[in-house]
């Protein structure tokens, strides 16, 4: 009996670090951030509560509004293009091709590199004076223009381009794993029935790999809300505020503008956005799982 309780003690001892991390670093930080967002703190936290005043200020701030609308444009395009491009790449990879390992390596390598590297490479490739624009003009097309990176109404699409380059290989890898799980008999049956291959992919296979597509979507969506490094490296939020995003707004108000309460209100809004993505996803999954059981 004594030995048994001794072993139990070891279990709780082993769990101690993770409890500390969870309770102190994760849970109480979140609560603290929320509490500060309800105050008027500037540089240091002061606990004079003004309740949702900061949220009001935040939502009225043009800088925040721009950041949010940029993020929506970026997020919708990035996720849509990644899913379509990733799905097409996965289908092409699934055609018993030669050199599959090579293509897989090539499609996925940008995902191994950091957002900072991704941003800096594309900044150089798209540099209007030296990059693609200059190279095409050098071929004799004097009027060729591709300077979106310095155009305020176009720069956000450059962010999409760089992010798709970095992330679409991931979608391909996840969906390809799904395609490989599709029953070989299904393919035989559809061949006998003479159903066109693209129809099989869109109306039979796609629903089967829907859970993988959902996983990929969640991963992409969460990375959208977190978007920060890529923006800092690629455009610095510019030109003007054309590529500002909420995460960058929060960081600037925390460290450069010393507007701690406002920054934390922004962070809480980011959290709300993530919850708004995850909760419907969670219930959709449970619903699908229940339906599958019946």
């Amino acid at each position: 009996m004594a030995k048994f309780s001794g072993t139990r003690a070891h279990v709780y001892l082993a769990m101690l670090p993770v409890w500390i991390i969870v309770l102190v670093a994760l849970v109480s930080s979140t609560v603290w951030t929320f509490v500060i967002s309800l105050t008027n703190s500037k540089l240091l936290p002061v606990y004079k509560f003004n309740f949702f005043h900061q949220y009001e200020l935040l939502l009225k701030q043009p800088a925040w509004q721009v950041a949010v609308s940029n993020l929506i444009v970026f997020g919708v395009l990035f996720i849509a293009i990644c899913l379509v491009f990733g799905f097409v790449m996965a289908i092409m990879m699934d055609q018993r091709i030669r050199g599959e390992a090579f293509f897989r390596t090539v499609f996925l390598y940008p995902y191994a590199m950091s957002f900072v590297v991704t941003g800096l490479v594309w900044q150089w490739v798209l540099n209007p004076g030296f990059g693609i624009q200059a190279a095409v003009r050098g071929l004799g097309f004097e009027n060729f223009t591709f300077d979106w990176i310095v155009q305020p109404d176009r720069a956000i699409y450059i962010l999409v381009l760089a992010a798709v380059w970095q992330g679409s290989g991931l979608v391909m890898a996840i969906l390809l794993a799904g395609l490989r799980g599709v029953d070989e008999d299904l393919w035989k049956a559809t061949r006998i029935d003479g159903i066109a291959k693209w129809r099989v992919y869109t109306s039979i296979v796609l629903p089967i790999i829907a859970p993988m597509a959902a996983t990929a979507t969640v991963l992409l969506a969460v990375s959208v809300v977190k978007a920060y490094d890529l923006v800092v490296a690629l455009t610095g939020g510019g030109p003007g505020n054309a590529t500002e995003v909420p995460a960058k707004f929060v960081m600037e108000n925390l460290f450069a503008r010393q507007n701690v309460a406002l920054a934390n209100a922004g962070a809480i809004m980011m959290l709300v956005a993530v919850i708004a993505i995850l909760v419907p996803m969670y219930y959709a999954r449970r619903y699908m799982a229940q339906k599958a059981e019946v």
Partner: protein
Amino acid sequence: MRMSSEKTLARTGVYAFLVISAAFFLMPFYVMVVTSLKTMDEIRVTSIFALPDTPTLQAWVTAWQSACTGLNCNGLSVGFFNSVMIMVPATVFSILLGAVTGYALSFWRPKGTGLIFGILLVAAFIPYQVFIYPLVRMLSQVGLYNSLAGIVAIHVIFGMPIMVLLFRNYYAGLPRDLFSAARVDGGGFWVIFIRLILPLSPPILIVAVILQSTHIWNDFLFGLVFAGSDNQPMTVLLNNIVNSTQGEKAYNVNMAATILTAAVPLIIYLASGRWFVRGIAAGAVKG
């Protein structure tokens, strides 16, 4: 006959798509490499796609030894060694902690298992900005803000959700009878972990090492906030070198510096092959 020519056409289409896609993915890397091998004079007059006339490694040497951020001209090597100093302990500690916790959660099921698992699952998705300010305050209180120990602790903290989920899921797939038998034989918590569970863990340990080392190496945000100027990781230093230069930029040096920063995760990726994809799949499980 018609059938087969249609098939050939389809095959050609598949390969055309794959080759064009591959060109899209490889183009920036190609441009990076050729730019880093040119002199600035050559960059000004040739296309970014042109091969270097007389390839030179001068930009690489400059990037490594003497590239400047503001008044500091010590090159990127400082950041490289800082990143190693951060990556090694942070990877080791987060994996150890993740493995022990995952083992405890799946086999011993202490009180609060569901709660801790739930919190970690949710935490994996929370934007880091939510935690940053309180953690800055906490680390300053204990004197770890802007220190090596501080940034390592931060990586261990934020590695916890994914590491615990990874190990718990793996251990949940091991036969429980093994564990029960070891219990009957009188094995305690640590004995069973070290003698029975760890020897069964190499596959998941490899995945964890790949996942954590690349994540930590590629981190920018935490390094920027928590590491302090003496421990700036390579990503932060790289961004400072490229984006804070006044006057004409040395594009060749910038690209050499960018490749150098990407080198470690790229080597891990190329060397690990299918393991890397497994890591992604394992990471995707959290969705």
